[in-house]
């Protein structure tokens, strides 16, 4: 079964929805990975939300790909988040202790995850602005 990832931009966040595959496994892992990376390579600082609401099953090979994508985003000052993860796949993240790395919640709808992501980026920008202004004050 082939898989497509459809990307939309909302502010500075790139949202990718996995289409046409209720299972991500060894057969379609390359399609998935190529689809995601083709989009991310053009982003200087990728803040990415991947939506898995149509995916029922996910193998450890997909988790390996997500770790590679996460590393790619982090190296460029961005972040990867996941949403629409069903409770069975969430259990896989919990068993592998990757729920901490990805800040993932079970069955979180894409709209809520996007809001949470936007809020966290706003807070981070405010903190950076604050740090910059206080360091300027100290210099003065």
């Amino acid at each position, binding site marked *: 079964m082939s898989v497509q990832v459809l990307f939309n931009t909302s502010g500075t966040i790139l949202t990718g929805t996995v289409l046409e595959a209720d299972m991500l*496994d060894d057969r379609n892992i390359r399609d998935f990975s190529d689809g995601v990376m083709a989009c991310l390579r053009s982003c200087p600082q990728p803040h990415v939300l991947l939506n898995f609401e149509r995916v029922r099953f996910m193998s*450890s090979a997909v988790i390996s790909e997500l770790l590679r994508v996460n590393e790619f985003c982090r190296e460029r000052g961005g972040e990867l988040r996941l949403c629409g993860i069903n409770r069975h796949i969430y259990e896989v993240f919990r068993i592998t202790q990757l729920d901490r790395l990805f800040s993932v919640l079970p069955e979180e709808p894409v709209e809520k995850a996007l809001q949470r992501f936007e809020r966290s980026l706003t807070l981070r920008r405010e903190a950076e602005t604050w740090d910059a202004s206080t360091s300027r004050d100290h210099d003065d």
Partner: protein
Amino acid sequence: MATVYRKRVPAACEAACALRKEILDALEQRGWVQDEEDRFAFWMTLEEALANAVKHGCHGDASRSVEVELEEMDDRVRIIVRDFGPGFDPDQVTMPDCRRVDGRGVCLIRHYMDRLVYDREQGGLVMERLRRQPRETSRDRGNTP
């Protein structure tokens, strides 16, 4: 234990995925899949065990074979995956930390199955799952009108 299913396919991804589906259907027909939790457990186990057999046991060489056998007893089903390679000890495989990209498949099988060993006599990875008690639903509890 009575053998209820056995099939050998080329050690290739497409063949292994088709085999996984066939075994899941067999498990469902024979009453081992009661709900989504069972289905996910068997899907994950078969996916990881077959991927391991194709990639590591057969090194992706489609001229080699992978075989799966199902055995049943009253309270348990046994899945044996053979790749005719040297085998490995699953007890030596531990969950990697989040910095390592690969190596989680065997740990996931261990979580979803009640027993996981490499059996030299059987010549394969042996995985057993006990029959779960039927789960109480909200309808059973009288919560549904």
